[in-house]
């Protein structure tokens, strides 16, 4: 079985997010790029399936973006146990999900993957579409928000999360593209052996410029959302903050005496 895992480099939670002078992107120079959280779960799920099959199955990490942002998460994926990686090198910041999916489709269609796993949503632009778009492009069956998977000879049974605590099992024939909900498993850390081994693994670099990119939606600007409420700020040393909260609980909200 050949499994592709789409992994995206996104700004870490702790990173300062500042709009750059173009107003169309953030200031990358102060940002630490890490793997998108739900993609890490997708990778773990793929590695677990390969281990359960114990045959010559293969897990391939696929990342798109500039090499300096992606190389760390690719190395990390290989160190965790992915067999090889495909880097779709793109200097341009493409925000249109269909353009992204079309590019990835053009780059990987000859690989004939049986499964494509992706995180349910990226924590930067968050369209939550690329896994499904790619599935349609590659004529695969698709499912989203998988919270459990069971691999079968030529199918995959998936437990899908619905809204408000509802779930549903469905079985998809392969090939299939499935987006993975966070929390599905416990992503592993790379072992020392894995880190050493990663150096010898193949990273195929593809240049996105050789593919057409027909943009259908464009991000015209980023902006700081305005505050909807009259928020009262409470700050200072912990002791004074606590006495202020006590006042609020007592006088404003009348929750305590």
């Amino acid at each position, binding site marked *: 079985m050949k499994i592709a895992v789409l992994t995206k480099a996104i700004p870490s*939670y702790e990173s300062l*997010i500042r709009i750059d002078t173009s107003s169309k992107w953030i200031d990358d120079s102060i940002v630490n790029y890490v793997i998108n*959280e739900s993609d890490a779960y997708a990778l773990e799920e793929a590695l677990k399936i390969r281990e359960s099959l114990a045959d010559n199955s293969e897990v391939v990490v696929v990342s798109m973006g500039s090499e300096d942002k992606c190389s760390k998460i690719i190395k990390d994926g290989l160190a965790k146990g992915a067999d090889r990686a495909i880097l779709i090198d793109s200097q341009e910041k493409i*925000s*249109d999900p*269909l353009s992204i*999916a079309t590019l990835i489709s053009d780059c990987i269609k000859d690989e004939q993957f049986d499964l494509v796993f992706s995180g349910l949503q990226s*924590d*930067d*632009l*968050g*369209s*939550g*579409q690329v896994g*499904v*778009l790619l*599935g*349609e492009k590659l004529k695969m*069956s*698709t*499912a*989203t*928000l998988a919270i459990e998977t069971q691999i079968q000879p030529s199918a995959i049974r998936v437990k*899908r*999360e619905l*809204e*408000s*605590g*509802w*779930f*549903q*099992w*469905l*079985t*998809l*024939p392969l090939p299939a593209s499935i987006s993975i909900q966070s*929390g599905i498993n416990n992503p592993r850390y790379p072992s020392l052996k894995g880190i050493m081994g990663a150096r010898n693994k193949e990273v195929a670099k593809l240049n996105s410029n050789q593919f057409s990119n027909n*943009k*259908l*939606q464009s*991000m015209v*600007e*980023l*902006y*700081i*959302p305005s505050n909807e*409420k009259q*928020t009262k*700020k*409470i*700050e200072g040393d912990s*002791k004074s*903050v*606590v006495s202020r*909260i*006590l006042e609020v609980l007592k006088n*404003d*909200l009348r*929750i*305590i005496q």
Partner: protein
Amino acid sequence: MILVVLENQRGKIHPFSVESVVAGQKIAKSLNQPLSILCVGDNIDPIHESAKQFDCSELILASHPLLKTYSADGFSKIIVDLIKSYSPKYCIFGHSYMVRDYVPRVSANLSIPFISDITSINLSSQNIQFSKQVFNAKLSSRIENESTNGCLLSFQSAAFSADELIKGAPEKVTNFEVQLSDSDIRSTTEEEFQESSSGVDLSTAELIVSVGRGIDNQDNIPIAEELAKVLGAELASSRPVVDMGWLPPFRQIGSSGQTVSPKLYFALGISGAIQHVVGMKGSKNIIAINKDEEAPIFEIADYAVIGDLLEIAPLLTEELRKR
């Protein structure tokens, strides 16, 4: 024309769909376009009945036995066929889990854009601009449609208020002939089910202490538990805390968990991603503690406590115990 697709949620119109009808009515009016509303599924009579009260030009009914259970293959094919025969300028959905599952398929099939998870629109600019949250809700982005062949839109909960719905009656009701066969649907679907919860109904709680990623590690969970206990509050959490196994799933608030509207929502170390906010924005009062001054939770909080919850919460618990 403008087309709004209603989602049938166990016999009722999905609340996000009602809000998307409001979006459709506003967009149709602004562009001087007729508005059509689609009821799609197997047994659509109940939602058809409710949809008859919506002011629109046309109610389209698309019913087929193979749509009895949801499938991405079946639903995306119907919408593709409908768009091909009606060519709507905008095709509008509520941003539900089902829409996230199949509407991208429509987008890729027809090569038309899907602008998803929209929180507001600007109808007065030359091209309509759609806003959505990006970078974990720290920023918003304005997006424009570049396609002349139609565009798919999905609106996040509360982008429009159902109170603004214009009631009336459709000028006509049309049946759309659904072309669907067994071979179109590749997946087999089992019954929907609810996971047994331990009986904690957070939706009726008056006071909630909710804990997020900022609690840092599992050993700190008692800090939140103790504060909840002394306040007589229920303990809740955001998704990452459940994902990491620090609290059980039935404590989770948000789009994949419970929706609450307590008198006080005390958010400890919760950043305020939209998936969480949709589950708690109805709270009467929100106090949020976060050391990141730019955390988006502060945009909806009544009281923004900027500081270290690991210091503040235990001290607060101690003071409350003295009373």
